[in-house]
């Protein structure tokens, strides 16, 4: 193996093992920042030693053992320091750190440790952006640079965000544990929100050149599946996993050869990943078995499932989709849900009925800069034959989106309408 090969191997091992190592260490040292530093130290040792010694047989166990030794060294040094301060009779300024129990079996609790790590990374004391960055860092094993590129932020900004997040957690004395009872529900929704944010950032990047950043979707899916494994009795966890699996099944069909987005109705459904659809439908079944009432992710997954089950757009059960949007609007009232519902109504009862519903939304303040509203209206106006108005809506939508690919699509739709308009004249 060449040095580059070794580095790529270490990179792969790190991405697979980082979360477990950091989680196990956090349980021992009770400080997620310190745990990550120790894990990073172990990574550095690996980078030094593995090119010489080769990759160990069980690289995960090797990283954990090395990090543990680093931790023991650190605690010994601190104890020694504390003792010296005592000897010279000075007031102890160095915080006395009790030697943790390093012999406690690390492997046994790995499930609980990973879950606790997810809860701590997604703690509500942190901003949503900080939670996402910290989660990708601690649970996804992503480098600061990778996170920065994924979120189109600068590396120092992300590094800063992570450092602040760790400090906030330490200052707030957030416990490394799996919350129970009523707290669990609130904390869990915070975790789900972060996973879905990561997925969405990858699925339909809000800005930038690439329309999809699939790496983020896969990372979110991986986190979701892990969470479903660790918290198998939570219906919304399965609901979110179902939603992501089904959305991800369309990944290959929703981008054309030159990177342009392809809308749901125009997608070649043969390119939908049936394995992911099966996984999604199975997760949806689990969510629905666990609870009689659907949570918001489960409803969204049920809507996605309606599309996944239809072999062509015409076969879609639009009446069911409308009723699922009704349920969603009741649970989480939002103009965006209303907009989606309007699309479903237009499919179930015709474009006029759908367009009627969007009229009320144009005065909605929160949708004023939302490009999908004029985009949907443009689409419905086209179907109604009101082409000049449609063109104006597409142009408006294009001016609102920050995504290059999407803007191109919208402009080309406006352009096509112009040609169509002329040909009618």
């Amino acid at each position: 193996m060449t040095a580059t090969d070794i580095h790529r191997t270490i990179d792969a091992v790190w991405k697979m093992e980082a979360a477990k190592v950091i989680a196990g260490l956090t349980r021992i040292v009770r400080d997620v920042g310190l745990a990550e530093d120790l894990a990073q130290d172990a990574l550095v040792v690996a980078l030094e030693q593995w090119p010489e010694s080769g990759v160990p047989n069980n690289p995960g166990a090797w990283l954990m053992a090395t990090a543990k030794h680093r931790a023991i060294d650190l605690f010994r040094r601190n104890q020694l320091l504390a003792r010296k301060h005592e000897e010279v009779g000075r007031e102890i300024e160095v915080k006395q750190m009790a030697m943790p129990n390093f012999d406690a079996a690390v492997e046994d609790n790995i499930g609980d440790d990973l879950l606790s790590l997810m809860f701590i990374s997604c703690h509500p004391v942190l901003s949503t952006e900080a939670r996402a960055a910290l989660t990708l860092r601690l649970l996804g094993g992503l480098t600061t640079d990778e996170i920065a590129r994924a979120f189109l932020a600068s590396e120092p900004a992300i590094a800063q965000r992570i450092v602040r997040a760790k400090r906030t957690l330490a200052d707030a004395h957030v416990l490394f544990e799996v919350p129970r009872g009523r707290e669990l529900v609130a904390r869990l929704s915070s975790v789900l929100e972060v996973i879905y944010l990561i997925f969405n950032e990858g699925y339909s990047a809000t800005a930038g050149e690439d329309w999809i950043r699939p790496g983020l979707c896969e990372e979110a899916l991986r986190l979701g599946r892990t969470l479903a494994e660790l918290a198998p009795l939570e219906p919304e966890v399965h609901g979110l996993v179902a939603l992501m699996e089904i959305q991800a099944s369309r990944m290959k069909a929703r981008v054309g050869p030159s990177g342009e987005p392809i809308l749901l109705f125009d997608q070649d459904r043969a390119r939908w990943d049936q394995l992911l659809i099966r996984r999604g439908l199975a997760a949806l079944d689990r969510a629905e078995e666990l609870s009689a009432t659907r949570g918001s992710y489960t409803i969204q997954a049920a809507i996605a499932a309606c599309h996944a089950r239809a072999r062509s757009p015409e076969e879609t059960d639009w009446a069911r989709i409308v009723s699922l949007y009704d349920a969603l609007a009741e649970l989480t009232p939002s103009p965006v849900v209303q907009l989606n519902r309007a699309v479903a109504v237009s499919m179930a009862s015709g474009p006029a009925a759908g367009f009627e519903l969007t009229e009320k939304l144009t005065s909605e303040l929160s949708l004023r800069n939302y490009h999908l509203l004029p985009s949907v209206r443009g689409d419905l106006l086209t179907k109604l034959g009101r082409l000049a108005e449609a063109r104006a809506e597409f142009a408006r939508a294009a001016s609102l989106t920050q995504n290059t690919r999407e803007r191109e699509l919208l402009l080309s739709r406006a352009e096509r309408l112009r040609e169509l308009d002329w040909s009618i004249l």
Partner: protein
Amino acid sequence: MRFLSIYKTAERATPPTAEEMATMGKLVEEGMKAGWLLATEGCLPTELGARVRRSSGKLTVTDGPFTEAKEVVGGFAILKASSKEEAIELARQFLRVAGDGECELRQIYDPGEASCYEPKTVAVAS
């Protein structure tokens, strides 16, 4: 990207023990749930198999067992990994449970997907 992992091992006379089945079962379940294992099967003795070959247009069939072979195909897996290195790690994980033998890893052709030759252009290492 997806990889085909073909497991080759010396053919043994005895079926796997209940314990071996259980540890392998655990790994398979883990992989299926986590999503890195897309499909996997294990093979029965070569005695029950055959080799069908076409050579210079002529077809021949050789029935098992394949006694002359040092190692025979013991099973296969289809792995989902974000790099060849990750697939290798998954194969190592498998061999730690399966015992002596070899996994031949081959990247599966996926239209529109980068092969491991091409430089990565995706934002997140994938």
